[in-house]
C-alpha cells in the first residue's frame, strides 16, 4: 500500500504529472479576480474568503481526471483490482495521493494569496485550518467522480459537471468559517461541520469509488 502511495506521488511530481499546475492555477485565478472586480481593498477583503475557497476548489478539480484515467489506460488499474489489497483501499490511497499533491500545497500557499486579496489578518488561521480540514473531502469526492467516468473518453468536462454540485456543502462551510474568522465571530461550528463532512467522506466514499471502479472494470 505504501509502495502504491509512493508510486502515485512520484508520478505526480515528475514532469507531466501536473504537480504545481494546480498551484499556478490557484495563483492565476486569485490574480484575475481584482482585474474583474476592481482594486479597492475593502471590497477585496470582503470577498476574499469566498474567492480563495472557490479558487482552491477549482484548482483541486483540475487534476482529478488523472486519478484513475492514466492507470486505466495502461492497464495497471486492472492489476490493482486483482491485487491482494482491496479496491476500497486503492481508492482511498489514490485520493490521499491527490490530496498530498494538490490539497496540502494549496493550503500552504493560501495565506500568501490571502495577502494579495487583503484578507483580514485574523482570518489567516481560519483559512489554513478550513482548507486543511476541507480539502481532503474535495479529494475524496473527486476520486469518486473520477471513478465514475474512468471509462469515458474525454470525460474531463463531464467530470466537472458531476463533481461540482457535490462540492457545495464543503464550500459553504469552508468559506463561512473563513468569513466568520475575518469578522471576529466564532467559527467553531462551521469548522466542526466541515470536519464532519470530511470524516464522513473518508469513511464512506471509498466504497462508492470501489463500486464504480468494479463496474467499469467488469
Amino acid at each position, binding site marked *: 500500500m505504501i509502495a502504491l502511495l509512493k508510486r502515485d506521488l512520484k508520478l505526480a511530481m515528475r514532469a507531466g504529472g501536473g504537480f504545481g499546475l494546480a498551484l499556478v492555477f490557484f495563483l492565476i485565478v486569485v490574480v484575475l479576480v481584482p482585474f474583474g472586480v476592481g482594486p479597492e481593498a475593502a471590497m477585496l477583503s470582503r470577498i476574499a474568503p469566498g474567492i480563495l475557497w472557490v479558487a482552491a476548489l477549482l484548482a483541486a478539480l483540475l487534476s482529478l481526471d488523472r486519478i484513475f484515467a492514466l492507470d486505466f489506460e495502461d492497464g495497471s488499474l486492472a492489476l490493482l483490482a486483482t491485487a491482494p489489497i482491496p479496491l476500497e483501499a486503492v481508492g482511498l490511497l489514490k485520493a490521499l495521493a491527490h490530496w498530498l499533491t494538490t490539497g496540502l500545497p494549496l493550503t500552504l500557499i493560501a495565506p500568501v494569496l490571502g495577502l494579495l486579496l487583503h484578507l483580514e489578518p485574523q482570518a489567516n488561521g481560519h483559512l489554513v485550518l478550513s482548507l486543511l480540514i476541507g480539502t481532503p473531502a474535495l479529494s475524496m469526492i473527486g476520486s469518486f467522480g473520477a471513478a465514475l467516468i474512468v*471509462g469515458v473518453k474525454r470525460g474531463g468536462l463531464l467530470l466537472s*459537471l*458531476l463533481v461540482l*454540485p457535490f462540492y*457545495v*456543502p464543503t464550500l459553504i*462551510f469552508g468559506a463561512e468559517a473563513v468569513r466568520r474568522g475575518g469578522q471576529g465571530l466564532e467559527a467553531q461550528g462551521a469548522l466542526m*461541520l466541515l470536519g464532519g463532512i470530511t470524516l464522513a467522506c473518508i469513511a464512506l466514499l471509498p466504497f462508492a469509488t470501489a463500486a464504480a471502479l468494479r*463496474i467499469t472494470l467488469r
Partner: protein
Amino acid sequence: MSFWEYANPRKYMEWSSPVMMWCFGAAPALLIAGVAWGYFGTPNAARFEASVKIIYLHVPSALMAINTWAMMVVASIIWLVRRHHVSALAAKAAAPVGIMMTLIALITGAIWGAPMWGTYWAWDPRLTSFLILFLFYLGYVALWAAIEDPDTAADLTSVLCLVGSIFALLSRYAVNFWNQGLHQGASLSLDAEKNVADVYYLPLLCAIAGFVLLFIAMVLLGTRTEIRLRRMRALTLRERKA
C-alpha cells in the same frame, strides 16, 4: 404470481399501455380543471392579490421535482439489487421529466417572486437547493449519455443517484446555514391539521393529481421507448450476425 413479474419487459409493455393511455387522458383533464378552477373559481388572497394563482403550477411542479428524484433513487436501488432492466430504464426516463419539473418550479417561482419579493431571484435556501437539484439532474443525464454500454451506464448512474441524493440532502441543509430565507415554510404537509384555506386547497390538490398522473404517463412513455430501443438494437445485432 409475484409483484416482480410486472417488471418483465413483455408483461410491462402489456400493462403499461392502457395505464399510460388513461394517465395521458386524465392528466390534462385534471390539470385544466385544477388550474381553471383556481384561476376563475377562487378569490384573490389578501396579501398576494392575483399573483397567488401561480401556486397551482408552482407547488405541484416543485413537489414532483423532489419526488421524481426519490423515485429515481428507489428505481436505482431495485436495479442494483434485483437487476430488473425495466427499473433502470424507468430511472433513466424519469430524469428528463424531473429536469422539466425543476425548471417549471424555478421559472414559476421567479415569475411569482417578481411582484412579491421585488426580485426574480434571491439566494434563498429553498431556491438555491432547487438550483443545486437541477445541477444534479443535469449531471445524471449527462452520465447516462456519456457511457456506451447500457448495463455499465445503468450501474454507474445508479451509484451516482444514490451518492448524489446524500449530497443533495446535505446541500439542502447546508444552505440553511449559509443564508436566511425569504421563502415561506412548507405550505403542505401530510401531518398538518390544516394546510391552506380550503378554497385554495381543493383546486391545488386537483392540480397536484394532474401533475402526478402526467409524471406517471411520461415515465411510462419514456420507459416504453427505451425498451423498444433496446429491442431494436438487439434485432439489428442479430441481423448483422446472421
